[in-house]
């Protein structure tokens, strides 16, 4: 082994002494600034935040619309509507409950519309 290798080997084995390491640690900890996030992460966080807000918005919109749809039949004055329907159509007997009568009326209306559409189509 030449002198250079011997000297470097001895130096490598020799560690400098760090006086008062705890004070150095405390000083480092006392000077820690805010952590920064990489641009990619910041962008992904923004995307996630916007997506969450949009999802919540859509959910609120859906729930409010569903609520409207559910509420609407209750707004119908069944008595008045039934009276009108029964006067227009003799197939709706008086002993049918209101909701059943309404359903029956819709079915009849649909079937008639279909027949009249077919007749119109074939010019009968």
């Amino acid at each position, binding site marked *: 082994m030449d*002198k250079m290798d011997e000297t470097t080997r001895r*130096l490598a*084995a020799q*560690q*400098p*002494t760090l006086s008062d390491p705890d004070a150095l*640690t405390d000083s480092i*900890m006392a000077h820690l600034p805010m952590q920064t996030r990489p641009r990619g992460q910041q962008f992904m966080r923004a995307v996630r935040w916007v997506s969450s807000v949009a999802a919540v918005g859509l959910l609120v919109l859906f729930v409010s619309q569903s609520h409207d749809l559910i509420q609407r039949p209750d707004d119908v004055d069944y008595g008045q509507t039934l009276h009108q329907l029964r006067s227009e159509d003799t197939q709706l007997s008086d002993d049918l409950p209101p909701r059943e009568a309404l359903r029956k009326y819709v079915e009849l209306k649909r079937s008639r519309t279909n027949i009249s559409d077919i007749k119109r189509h074939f010019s009968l």
Partner: protein
Amino acid sequence: MTIINNDIIERCRCGDHAAFRTVVQAYQPMVFTLAFRLLCDEDDAKDMVQETMIRVWVSFASFNPRQSLRNWIYTIAIRLCYDRLKQKAPLETLPDEEEFFGLYIADNDTEMELENHELLAVIRTLVSRLSPRQRIVFTLVHLENLGTEEVAQITGMDATKIKSNLYVARKTIREQLKQFGYG
């Protein structure tokens, strides 16, 4: 040395100060030794530990946990030391440092324990003629005992550059030793 597991790393990435204190305690001797050997100044080495650890903390979110934490901290420390070396005036050794160096290399006592100022005198005299890049490669390979692959990873230099810098560094140090009668 405290083992830094993935849990501590993850907590550091989330900004946990207590977890980071563990990292500082584990790695500050390593950074201090490296900076001491490169900058050849005890106070500068302490400043460098602080600067490195703050940089580690600030950029912890960008640390890839699959990477080696030790090598990542080495990389940050090396970059900061390199910038400092470029700013600093070239090393000038004092006559009494050269005198101590002569005594040190003449002594074959491998168990001799040196004080910090004695160790500085030896390192300063040994590396005073090296460029910052040569000093980094020489220190990492011969004093920190890292392999070429690790040095490449830490410094960002390719193997050819590392070998050429190391070759020149060794040649310069041999010439330096010749002046002290060891050819």
